[in-house]
């Protein structure tokens, strides 16, 4: 177990370092510098600006300096907003995105899993067909379309919730459901098929033969075993929720990190793009690691086996 953790931590650090370096050099490769505007700045001003941000240093020195600062957790200043650092932007935006993301993941797990179980228990009945059809629609509708659709029906049509903005509980409902849409559908399909597989196992027959109630058979014996495939897809699902927030935060005018990220891309705010990319990758890699740990903890068969060629 210790070896497994050590191996994973090392590969995590490696991934983040590679992402950081690759992004750094990509941003430096861009032909238009951060100070190229429509109106050309005088040469001297550009020179001063470059001196201020150490852009006149040789590339390797800039890289080493950036990496040193990165190790201390300092992501540098924003090129666009001279009075803010990238750390400021992350500190402002991330709590908002995280709150939205957590609500979305809770919705996904709380709705997707029961739907999948229900579908499996009524296999091939109309309930099952309905759940699976809706789930297939759910994985097919892009999140930005889902956002517009929900906003149109529930905010502009029925006036149940505000159309956009951030701050009240009511305002979190639409964006959270938008973000949860794909994970709900995905989980429902996954849980249904794993449940069907588990229900054919002999230990389920044994449990029924012992005279256990159906409720105990499902929730005690079957559910535990479908949790394993569910946990393995949580990593990609969390990634989907985070990247989904890029567009959902824009549509619903939420001041989260995803929206800052997209804005910084359109503004050519290179240091912010760089910093936020590194932050996102580190976060996702870390969450995937947590998912893997949970996975090993849930399934004793994995715990002691070394990760050989899978």
């Amino acid at each position, binding site marked *: 177990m210790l070896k497994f953790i050590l191996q994973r931590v090392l*590969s995590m650090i490696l*991934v983040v370092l590679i992402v950081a370096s690759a992004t750094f050099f990509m941003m430096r490769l*861009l032909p238009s510098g951060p100070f190229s505007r429509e109106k050309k700045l005088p040469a001297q001003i550009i020179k001063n600006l470059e001196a201020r941000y150490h852009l006149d240093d040789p590339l390797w020195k800039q890289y080493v300096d950036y990496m040193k600062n990165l190790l201390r957790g300092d992501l540098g200043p924003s090129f666009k907003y001279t009075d803010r650092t990238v750390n400021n932007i992350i500190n402002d935006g991330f709590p908002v995105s995280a709150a939205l993301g957590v609500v979305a993941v809770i919705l996904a797990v709380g709705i997707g899993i029961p739907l999948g179980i229900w579908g499996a228990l009524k296999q091939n009945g109309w309930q099952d067909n309905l759940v699976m059809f809706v789930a*297939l629609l759910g994985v*097919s509708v892009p999140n*930005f379309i889902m956002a*517009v659709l929900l906003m149109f029906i529930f905010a502009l049509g029925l006036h149940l919730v505000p159309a956009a903005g951030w701050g009240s509980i009511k305002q979190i409902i639409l964006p959270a459901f938008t973000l949860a849409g794909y994970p709900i559908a995905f989980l429902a399909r996954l849980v249904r098929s794993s449940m069907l597989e588990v229900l054919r196992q002999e230990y389920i027959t044994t449990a029924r033969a012992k005279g256990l109630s159906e409720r105990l058979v499902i929730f005690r014996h079957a559910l535990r075993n479908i949790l394993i495939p569910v946990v393995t897809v949580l990593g990609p699902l969390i990634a989907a929720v985070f990247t989904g927030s890029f567009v959902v935060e824009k549509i619903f005018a939420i001041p989260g990190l995803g929206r800052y990220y997209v804005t910084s891309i*359109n503004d050519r705010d290179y240091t912010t793009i760089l910093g936020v*990319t590194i932050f*996102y990758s580190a976060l996702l890699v870390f969450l995937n690691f947590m998912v893997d740990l949970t996975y090993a903890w849930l399934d004793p068969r994995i715990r002691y086996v070394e990760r050989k060629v899978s």
Partner: protein
Amino acid sequence: MAAQTAWQFKEGVAPDAGSFVPAPKDSGELQQIAGRSTTYWSDAIRRIRRNKLAVVGFWIIIALFVVAIVGPMVSPYSYEDQDLDNTFQSPTLRHPFGTDQLGRDQMTRVMYGSRISLAVGIVCAALNFLIGVTYGGISAYFGGRVDDIMMRIVDILYGIPTLIIVILLTVLFKDKGVNPLVNVFIAIGLTYWLPMARIVRGEILSLKEREFALAAKTIGAPNNRILFRHLIPNAMGPIIVTVTLEIPAAIFTEAFLSYIGLGVSAPVASWGVLASDGTEAIRSFPYLVLFPALAISLTMFAFNFLGDGLRDALDPRLRQ
């Protein structure tokens, strides 16, 4: 009739009457195979024909291709023809999908958009074959150190969310002045082969231990012949399923990028651009976002339906 002698009794040996009855002389006929034998592919086609959703998906995709090719040719408008006297028109006979903020015919624009989306899908599928299948195949076939290194690279790329790589690559190429559509192709091509590489690797790892691979090796077939002529064709089922399920993901990514302003930009009408323009006018002119939204969703349904059906039909491990 040749295969029948097995049941016959020798003359003179009296059977224990009553305990068993001699088989009729023509029992061999019963053992003959009636009808043609089914192959893997004819079996798969039969299965998929029975899956109504998959058949519907298949025909929707065919219809989309027809619309994408023929539609813009027969339309009286071009995607950039402006008619400033008739902006924001509701759907009429002249403009079945209405017109946008510059009076451009929305139906023509949606039809042009289908060209972009399907092109993205085709390019993604082609690159999936070229890069993903080759990469996974080589990794599995040579195994050992080669496999370790190649798969470690895939693992690292897997750790980074695809969309972030795509966004970064698009930013890079956009500033290099590359055509935005080509941008999207490159970005999608460079990232979407990862699942394919893993799946092909898994298939080839087991296929290369089979007798036919050994047979090919014994008669001295070169490695690339064994890999591309013998092993990969046998992994075609899972490959086709993966491609069909990667295509909607690529189409989604293009629309997503165009929606946030990184992909194809105006005046060319990508569905993402149309949806984004429509979203801005949603309070007053909701039909403007309706048609591109329907088009994207319908395309993704169709590919997902077909992909699901293909998976049930082609992937023996998932058969129930």
